[in-house]
């Protein structure tokens, strides 16, 4: 399976690499010189079929995975959202290529997309939330399709096998063999990074042909770096996201991807459409749900950055203000309840009609001891949402009697 970004192998492997000083003596990955221009889109050879034993094996595993994925509760089966995302894929790669992909929109609040060799593509809701326009979404989906069309999973598997075989044989050589082993393994990661870059460029070629803005894809990585850094700073860590590549990194660092994509976009004389409005329309009500999922990730710094970035585009809408109120209320540190209450009030002042804002305000006020107004807000919420999952608890907090339907307890 090929994934879009930020994947890291297990911490144990990273530690193993870090503990061995020999790593420093190995040749570094070749510096990424941006190619002169976007690669041409190859002639379409039709839907892939597995060719050899290895490929049939990988397809068999993918079919098993797909069976479970298809039945998963994380699949968003809303026809409108699926039709929209699929439509963007088809516009990007073309109707003929599009037919060979089965696309699954997964409700996972993390930035990622992936491609299985058999044509199963996934995009996670965390990626959809982070797109600022249809052009970016087209680039991400085009990147995944480029992995598929170029049979990257199969080539990567063969490369991994060759690397691990070489590593094992090298282990027979005392002392020096260790360096050779690690070199062989690193070769696999360098190869993998080259595949990611090839898919980045392939995706960008699709984007350009479809008439979208080519500048957009670089922006995705720039924002990811900023968001990750903001999250790190809020946790008291040093900002360093995306700027360097670990020894066992399967993907180029985000900063490098941003740089070569930006250089290519400039050469491509960008006149295309970023598609901001069409993306907003396409996501529809899902945008708000994805925002809620994001708040629950407990990544205060990253989410603050993300909301501020959305506000740079749309202004501080009632929805963004209310979501930011949730973020502060759920963190609940000193002073957060007052900030949250202020944000909810601003949202209400802008006419934001979602009952959840009143619920959040009610809870924030109660936590500050403002009983009367807090209870009034919860009552207003319960009137709008009498069937809320925690209605019984909220009724108690609002000072309302238990519902008459409740039978006698034993």
């Amino acid at each position, binding site marked *: 399976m090929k994934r879009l970004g930020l994947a890291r192998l297990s911490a144990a492997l990273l530690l193993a690499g870090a503990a061995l000083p020999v790593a420093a003596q190995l040749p570094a990955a070749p510096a990424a010189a941006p190619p002169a221009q976007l690669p041409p889109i190859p002639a379409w050879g039709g839907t892939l079929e597995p060719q050899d034993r290895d490929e*049939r094996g990988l397809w068999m595993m993918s079919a098993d995975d797909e069976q479970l994925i298809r039945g998963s509760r994380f699949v968003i089966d809303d026809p409108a959202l699926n039709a929209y995302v699929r439509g963007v894929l088809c516009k990007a790669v073309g109707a003929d290529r599009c037919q060979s992909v089965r696309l699954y929109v997964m409700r996972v609040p993390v930035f990622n997309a992936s491609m299985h060799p058999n044509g199963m593509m996934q995009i996670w809701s965390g990626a959809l939330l982070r797109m600022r326009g249809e052009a970016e979404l087209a680039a991400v989906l085009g990147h995944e399709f480029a992995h598929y069309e170029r049979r990257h999973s199969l080539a990567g*598997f063969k490369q991994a096998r060759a690397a691990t075989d070489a590593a094992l044989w090298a282990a027979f050589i005392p002392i020096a063999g260790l360096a050779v082993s690690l070199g062989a393994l690193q070769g696999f990661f360098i190869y993998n990074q080259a595949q990611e870059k090839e898919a980045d460029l392939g995706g960008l070629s699709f984007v350009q042909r479809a008439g979208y803005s080519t500048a957009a894809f670089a922006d995705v990585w720039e924002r990811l770096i900023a968001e990750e850094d903001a999250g790190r700073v809020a946790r008291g860590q040093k900002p360093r996201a995306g700027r360097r590549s670990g020894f066992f990194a399967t993907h180029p660092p985000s900063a490098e991807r941003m740089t070569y994509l930006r250089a290519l976009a400039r050469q491509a004389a960008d006149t295309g459409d970023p598609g901001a409005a069409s993306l907003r329309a396409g996501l529809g009500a899902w945008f708000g749900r994805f925002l809620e999922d994001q708040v629950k990730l407990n990544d205060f710094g990253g989410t603050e950055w993300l909301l501020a970035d959305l506000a740079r585009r749309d202004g501080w809408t009632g929805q963004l203000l209310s979501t930011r109120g949730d973020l502060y209320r759920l963190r609940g540190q000193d002073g957060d309840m007052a900030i949250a209450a202020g944000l909810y009030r601003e949202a209400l002042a802008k006419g934001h009609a979602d009952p959840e804002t009143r619920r959040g305000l009610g809870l924030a006020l109660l936590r500050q001891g403002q009983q009367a107004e807090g209870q009034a807000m919860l009552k207003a919420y319960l009137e709008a949402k009498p069937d809320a999952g925690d209605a019984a608890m909220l009724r108690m907090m609002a000072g309302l009697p238990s519902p008459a339907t409740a039978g006698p307890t034993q």
Partner: protein
Amino acid sequence: MKRMMVAAGLALATLAVPALPVAAQEVARVRDGVTITPGQTRIMIMQPNIKVGSMSTGGLFEPNAEWTATARKLIDAQVRQQLAGQGITLVAQPEIAAGSDGPQNPVQQYRALFPVVAKAVMEFQFFLGNRLPTKKRPGVFDYTLGSGIASMPGAQDADYALFMFTEDAYGSAGRKAAQLLMAGLFGVAIAPGVHVGYAGLVDLKTGDLVWLNADPEMGGDVRETDGAVKRVGQLLANFPGTKLTAPAPAPKK
């Protein structure tokens, strides 16, 4: 998925993890109070999770679609034959029968959940070195997939669901050579292959795991009929309410 295979392969290649000592592992448990009566009890056979391939020299799993397809056929036939021979009424998993499959499908969700629970049993109860304090009381065997399984399509037509998992990686020629050399030159044991399997029975009213059999020493070449007979015999050994017993251990290859 590929990433996991690669990670596992790299770990095997670089660290040469020796197999866990088998003696420290309990093999099977039955939950108290389970009643399986031949002639009455209906068992739904869930689509088993079967993977067959080879192990590359460096330890990577190389999936083999042909071997897997053969093993699936042979194991399915054997499971049916051996259980029917004990008078158990067999019921097919619903969408295998109907040929339909769709999003948010509880059948697939329970197929995905079962290995997670089974692995928790193996790791935190069956493996003596890591047994949780709450799993040390005699007779305790308390795991469940949740009572929601009662509303899974087809659940009302059966009493129990049988889940099975097998994974086999037969050592390639290079792997076998490396194994001999490693052992001969350095005395280091590297696994010549992987042969794992487990089977479990879940109560379709409560979701409780009522039986789990996870013998870590799986035998029988699942690519051949005789081997599949043996493997299924091992998977179904001491199936509650039946006279099924483990096949006699064959000489090791």
